[in-house]
């Protein structure tokens, strides 16, 4: 890239230049150090847990704390992250299941159909949603959305499909205050702007000539979207969904306020549960010693999850750029 050649451009080289670039590079080094410190602190603070329990056991035990009687009468505490992992995974999946189609379809409208005077304000408004702090979403969800969802969709699903599918049922007579489903739905609303924005970018980058080639053969607009635009943008769209998934996984506060902080893996999506983030938020205040390192271990698990997704997205986007350059 041209700009990179700058550092080989011999301008009027002055002593100041060297110190200048050194100084600037310190910033990036700081970033690296920050990341190392982050990982380091997470790993070392969770060590006390790894001393008494294997990661596999930690990840697969549903109950947060179980005391196990030992032969000598003492009790060993076994920690389990499975419930929190379950909650995180399921809420994120629900969120993506709702947000991906609506977001991508909405982006299709913006790119393929909307005239400029509609597309510009609409795009702007969608992006604005991302500016609303998540704690505000949490408050609205707890006081308004949750109730609406409970009384309409959840009730409807539970009384129809839920009769056959246990994990979609509700316990009769005691509609829960918070639930996994609601948290997932709220998450969907929160990640929608990201899917729309990124999908839009990738679909816009599909050359107009490809669409014209198909329409010129007698295809309808929908057919050109289905057979040309979407397949060509497919990798980018997957990246958009992954990005949003990462965001959903990491979302803390809004989810914490709506999920309900219940123990164990719930038997139905319409019951309260826990996510990694909400478990941490609810437990860290009172946690001591080993329990504290269990909480940190939760954080480490979440970090690894989002780390992997960030790398995946980066690889995907790079591949998309390569494909575009070749075609």
């Amino acid at each position, binding site marked *: 890239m041209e700009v*990179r050649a*700058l*550092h080989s*451009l011999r*301008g*009027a080289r*002055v002593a*100041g*230049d060297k110190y*200048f*670039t050194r100084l600037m590079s310190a*910033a*990036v080094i*700081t*970033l*690296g150090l920050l*990341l190392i*410190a*982050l990982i380091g602190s997470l790993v070392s*603070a969770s060590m006390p847990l790894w001393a008494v329990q294997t990661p596999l056991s930690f990840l697969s035990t549903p109950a947060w704390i179980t005391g196990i009687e030992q032969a000598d009468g003492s009790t060993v505490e076994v920690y389990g992250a499975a419930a929190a992992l379950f909650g995180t995974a399921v809420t994120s999946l629900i969120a993506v299941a709702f947000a991906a189609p*609506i*977001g991508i*379809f*909405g982006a*299709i*409208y913006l790119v393929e*159909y909307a005239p*400029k005077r509609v597309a*510009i304000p*609409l*795009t702007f408004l969608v992006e*604005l*949603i991302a*500016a609303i*702090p*998540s*704690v*505000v979403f*949490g*408050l609205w969800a707890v006081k*308004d959305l949750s109730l609406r969802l409970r009384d309409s969709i959840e009730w409807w699903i539970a009384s129809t499909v839920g009769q056959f599918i246990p994990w979609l049922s509700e316990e009769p007579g005691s509609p829960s205050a918070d639930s996994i489903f609601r948290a997932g739905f709220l998450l969907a*609303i929160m990640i*929608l702007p990201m899917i729309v924005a990124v999908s839009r970018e990738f679909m816009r980058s599909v050359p107009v000539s490809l669409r014209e080639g198909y329409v010129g053969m007698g295809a*309808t*607009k*929908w*057919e050109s*979207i289905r057979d040309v635009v979407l397949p060509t943008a497919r990798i980018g769209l997957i990246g958009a969904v992954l990005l949003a998934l990462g965001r959903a996984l990491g979302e*803390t506060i809004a989810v914490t*306020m709506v999920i309900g902080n219940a123990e164990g893996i719930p038997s139905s999506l319409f019951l309260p549960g826990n996510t990694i983030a909400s478990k*941490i938020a609810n437990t*860290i205040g009172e946690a001591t010693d080993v329990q504290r390192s269990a*909480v*940190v271990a939760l*954080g480490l698990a*979440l*970090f690894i999850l989002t780390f992997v*997704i*960030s790398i995946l997205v*980066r690889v995907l986007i790079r591949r998309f750029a390569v494909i575009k350059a070749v075609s």
Partner: protein
Amino acid sequence: MTEASKSIRDELLKPDSGSVRRSRIDWIMRRVFEASAFLTVLPLFVVIMFVFVRALPWLNPAFFFNNPLDPEPGIFNAIIGSIQMSGLAMLITAPIGIAGGVYLSEFASSRVVSIGETLIDILLGVPSIVAGIFAYLLLVPVLGFSAWAGSLALAVLTLPIVMRTTQEVMRLVPVSIREASLALGIPVWRTTLLVTLRTAFPGVLTGLVLALSRALGETAPLIFTAKGTNALNFLEFGTTMNAMPLVIYRYAGAAEDQLVGQAWATALVLMAVALAMNVAVRWRTIDSRVA
């Protein structure tokens, strides 16, 4: 008319169930896309309206200027607490973030750029709760439950944002501007600061404002660092400090109507500030992102 011409007439005009079906599907899909676009924008209005309506009865001067323990409670300590901690966070983040962005855009070799961008991607993806744990583990033992720890936790979250926006904006400055300056004999470091950065400055400012907006709205990093308090804390960073998001978080589940009401009102203030900041910086470039 020949046989051949007749078949053209047929091809074009004869009612053809296949093409009728296709055109109907085309129409339906278009409506589906329109409806989806509507759905993506709907939550914005619903949330704004709802918060606005619920918050309105609780907005009065006492709300803004009193503290939680006063007879007529308010959130003044949270307002200035937010300003202080976010402000400090930005003071820390801005120089480092801008420097890093400049370096990545202007001076780094492509390998370093790749590493740097990956680093930024990773840090951007770090959940705010993890940043909170980090601060809790590393900063609280040293700094105690304090506004110092809270501000630093916020700084960790905002640093990658500033670095990325600065890098991207600097990249957009045409090479010719740098070349013109260098050709005049201006040293590289001056060119970068006084020419390239100055040209990119509106974009850099936008990045800073967006980062600030994010810092103001964050809750998780503060929960176990600055923790929140009912006391008024002005410039005493060594102890706990209140913040608006903390107020909302704490009061949301309260039993008393007044606390819940104050949560709504605080939410309105936070939301209004965040939206105003975002609209202000994005308004100028509103056209440029659409084809």
